[in-house]
């Protein structure tokens, strides 16, 4: 098990008081807090190394470039990818998905081609495809989920067919917590001649991930949701795929030769990193990858299963509470959405905030899912490594005492 006492010490913000109560931060699915190690890496970079990368000969430029490229290797290792050159740094998961929609989608989709999504997708895995569909005439299809919050695989089998060019699916739902059977979807997609994109925004932070085992073709995630700084996302593509793709953004760094009549592109992944990247935050992301590697993603997962089980169990003891999503922790991660008969999610969030407890209320960027559940919004507590049951308890107690 994780030594949460020691881990908590690494997170300076957790010493904060909110409304005169020690902060209990249960909004990790939106963004996690950052350990001292990540903050220090940022400071160290700006105090000792800061320089623009990839084009300078002077010492700082060379050091900054090396440190930046090292993190590519760490990012690849975190998701079991063998080749750092298949990693593109973006701003966030959203940009990773948009990159695929533009740089792969615009040239590979046409009128009547189908993109299969699910009703539990985050807007970031819906809207880029709607925009692509508008540009190309492609059509979206949505896999429903069952009442227990698991994906309807039978329906998926029916939807994924000849016309399917892409299946794009969330690995772990940010609302229901559901962990989707990606490997099975990969088989269905590939059997149909389609590619599979996995939105790993919630899985890369909380599960051991191996893109080879998953069998996916694209995998995107955000560092800010996994102890890293804001402003860094990752797109991984299966070896060979990036090479075939058109550029996404044009500008410095992504070119080989620029002539008035046209240009040629730099090798991948640089072809997809136009302009000065978010150098400092990529480098500080290295500290986030290190931190998780040292804990071990298996231990992270075990810890979060335990706290999620505890939280769901205590929540369910409150009369009038219903939890959305699977109740079996083997099938889900630590984002726990619930409704309470007696109060609206926004009121719950305001009330528990008065107790220093930060949870989220709203549609969680998943309006299709909300409509499917038949609720305007839910409350959501979400866990990460630096929380233990005691914190979950404070959140639950705040709901219990003051809301109802």
């Amino acid at each position, binding site marked *: 098990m994780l030594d949460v006492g020691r881990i908590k010490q690494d997170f300076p913000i957790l010493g904060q008081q909110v409304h005169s109560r020690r902060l209990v931060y249960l909004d990790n699915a939106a963004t996690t807090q950052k350990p001292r190690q990540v903050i220090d890496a940022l400071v160290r970079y700006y105090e000792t190394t800061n320089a623009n990368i990839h084009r300078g000969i002077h010492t700082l430029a060379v050091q900054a470039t090396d440190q930046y490229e090292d993190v590519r290797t760490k990012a690849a290792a975190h998701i079991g990818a063998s080749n750092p050159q298949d990693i593109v740094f973006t701003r966030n998961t959203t940009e990773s998905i948009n990159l695929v929609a533009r740089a792969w989608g615009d040239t590979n989709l046409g009128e009547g081609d189908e993109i299969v999504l699910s009703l539990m997708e985050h807007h970031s895995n819906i809207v880029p495809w709607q925009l692509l569909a508008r540009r190309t005439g492609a059509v979206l299809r949505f896999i429903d989920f069952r009442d227990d919050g698991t994906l309807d695989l039978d329906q998926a089998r029916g939807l994924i067919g000849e016309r399917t060019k892409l299946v794009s699916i969330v690995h772990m739902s940010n609302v229901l917590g559901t962990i989707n059977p990606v490997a099975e979807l990969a088989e269905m997609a590939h059997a149909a001649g389609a590619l599979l994109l996995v939105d790993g925004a919630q899985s890369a932070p909380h599960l051991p991930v191996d893109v080879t085992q998953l069998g996916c073709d694209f995998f995107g995630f955000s560092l800010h949701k996994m102890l890293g700084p804001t402003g860094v996302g990752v797109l991984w593509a299966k070896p060979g795929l990036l090479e075939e793709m058109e550029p996404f953004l044009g500008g410095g760094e992504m070119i080989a030769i620029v002539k008035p009549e046209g240009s040629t592109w730099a090798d991948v992944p640089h072809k997809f990193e136009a302009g000065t990247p978010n150098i400092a935050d990529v480098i500080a992301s290295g500290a986030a990858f290190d931190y998780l590697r040292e804990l071990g993603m298996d231990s992270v997962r075990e810890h979060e299963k335990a706290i999620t089980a505890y939280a769901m169990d205590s929540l369910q003891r409150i009369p009038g509470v219903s939890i959305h999503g699977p109740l079996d922790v083997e099938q889900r991660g630590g984002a726990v959405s619930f409704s309470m*008969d007696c*109060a609206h999610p*926004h009121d719950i969030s305001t009330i528990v905030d008065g107790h220093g407890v930060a949870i989220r209320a709203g549609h969680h960027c998943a309006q299709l899912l909300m409509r499917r559940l038949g609720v305007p919004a839910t409350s959501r507590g979400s866990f990460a490594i630096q929380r233990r049951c005691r914190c979950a308890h404070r959140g639950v107690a705040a709901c219990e005492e003051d*809301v109802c």
Partner: protein
Amino acid sequence: MTAPEPQFDELYRDIIVDHYRRPRHHGTLAAPTQQAEGVNPVCGDEIRMDVSIHDAVIDGIAFDGQGCAISQSSASMLTERVQGHTIAETKDVIGKFRAMMVDGAAADSGLGDLVALEGVAQLPVRVKCALLAWNVLQEALQQAAPAAGKEPA
């Protein structure tokens, strides 16, 4: 499972919770002269409002909607406060309520029960919930021509 009575915390004074659970003037009017509705896209709160105005007096008002305790209780208290009052008086109340919520003005005793929402002014992110019904009312009042008999949109 029986839903227990809401308790809420200090922010949620009893009167707010009471209006939330037992909204006054809830529903629709048979013959509204004005109708308006509003949605807060960020949080999904919705308010539809029927108003009946004759001789510059609000002689009927009803609302319907869904959302949090703040948006719904604010709507309920609004209807109680303006029913039977002239348009001029109503505009004065709207002004006072806005002043309390947005400009940080002290609660005016003319607001009656609505004073209970004073605490919300400390929570900028919830102020829009409290204001939703007021924006809808204002829109209804601005409708130049009476819209009697129009189907709700």
